[in-house]
């Protein structure tokens, strides 16, 4: 089987709000981060206006190591949108190193789908997407 690719970035669009924008700005600068409560240290993703543990709005954006562990995944063989040719891609849920409890859902690529295992280590790969933003995707570590 051929290696899975990431969904081409020109098909991917995101939008932000005042609480998620810092995450996307940081990723755009190729620094992986996650929202961390400035008061109690609890991580939350996606970023939201209050810490669900202590209700503080004080938020930190630490630079993370950019590695993680595959928590779960799916293998898809069909194009996710109408009008483009089919290809293999792997939506993946990654537990982020350095941010306990925080996960990112994106693509794992440059790997044969049959070789993907839950628990495997992955490293971040920033993929340019629409609007000048980037998406934190993953490749095998």
């Amino acid at each position, binding site marked *: 089987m051929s290696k899975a690719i990431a969904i081409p970035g020109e098909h991917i669009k995101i939008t932000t709000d005042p609480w998620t924008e810092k995450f996307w700005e940081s990723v755009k600068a190729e620094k992986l981060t996650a929202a961390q409560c400035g008061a109690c240290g609890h991580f939350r*993703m996606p970023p939201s206006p209050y810490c669900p543990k202590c209700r503080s709005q004080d938020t930190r954006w630490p630079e993370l190591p950019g590695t993680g562990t595959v*928590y779960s995944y*799916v293998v*898809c063989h069909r194009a*996710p949108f*109408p009008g483009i040719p089919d290809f293999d*891609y792997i939506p993946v849920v990654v537990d982020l190193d350095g941010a306990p409890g*925080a996960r990112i859902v994106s693509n794992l690529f440059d790997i044969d789908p049959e070789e993907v295992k*839950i628990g495997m280590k992955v490293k971040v790969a920033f993929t340019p997407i629409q609007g000048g933003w980037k998406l934190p995707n993953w490749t095998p570590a």
Partner: protein
Amino acid sequence: MVWAHQDKCAIVGVGATKYYVRGQSWPRTINEMIGEAVMKACDDAGLKVEQLDGFAYYSSASAGYGEKMDTATLMEMLGIPEVGFSAAITSGGGGSAGSMGLATAALMNEDTKYCVTIMALQQYHKRLGLAYSLSEPTPESSFLQPSGLVGPGHLMSVLFRRHMHLYGTSREALGEIVISQRENAIPRETSVRRNPLTLEEYFQAPMLADPLCRLDFCLETDGAVAVITTTSDRAKDLKQKPVYIHGAAHGGKAEWGRAFAWMGMPTDEAFASSGHKAIGDRLWNLAGVGPQDMDVALLYDHFSCMVLMQLEDYGFCKKGEGGPFVQSGAVRYKGGSIPVNTHGGQLSEGYIIGMTHLREAVEQLRGVAVNQVKDAELALVTGGPAHLPVSGCVLRR
């Protein structure tokens, strides 16, 4: 403590259109189908349409994912003179079974005497299965949509993959659920899929989101179903034998939360689940009965894996043992210890966002089901595993 309103209200009428393959209900309009279902439900109950005075919706009163059900429009269309209750359980199909609790609340509060719950779906303009991939991103969905998890089946596949990893659950188990429900659908004239299915054919179906194949995804159908509820006192004077609302619960825990629209569930038990554990615990407590007392279970089956995980969450088997449980034949209509989705479910009969399960429960408890469970007295009905609220109810003959 058993629920204060136990058996105080009952389902007295059910009506439905035929179930159409996606898009084929056109040129009938969605309100036209709603009208047919409501009028048939009134006929079934022995009520005049004019007597309806309450609307207890779920799915935020949406019809599918785009069109809205509007009480004033339905009053105008059907000549309903006055309404005393019009409310919905929020979110999506998770609230289908819980709508019986909302109706009970309305009836016990004396806001309404004859209350109707409706769902209608028409996928002529927009396909439900593509709803996510075609929608504009929101700040929240921007953390999910770029992954190419384009629909609910893709999202739930992620949860089931984790279940396979944790407990060794196999795709054969899902195949057994799909085949068992197909067998139930075959003798039913209402069913969209009536051809027999083998495990070999199941494994030949195209993978849409590995580990889920096309046959693990429910049908995309059009149609409408209406269910009428009233107090048990009033029910005695109507045409049908009442089906009592023995317990109903909706809600759920934050650890499930937005579920597969979030993927942040903090424990394996919550992640590889249907999100119904909290509802199951509460429902059994409210109803004063348990899974061992159920004669039939109508479990929301938008995706086969969610039948398996609901069996665990409602305690029909232990957590993690859903695979071996179904593979033992336990959910079969013929010979199973707990017949599941005796109508064929959304996988094989028709998909009207949970309402076909209520309809089948009523038929079972009236003793008129096509695949009748002998002397069925208690039925579990559940709403869709999805972001909160989710729901369940126990109905009694």
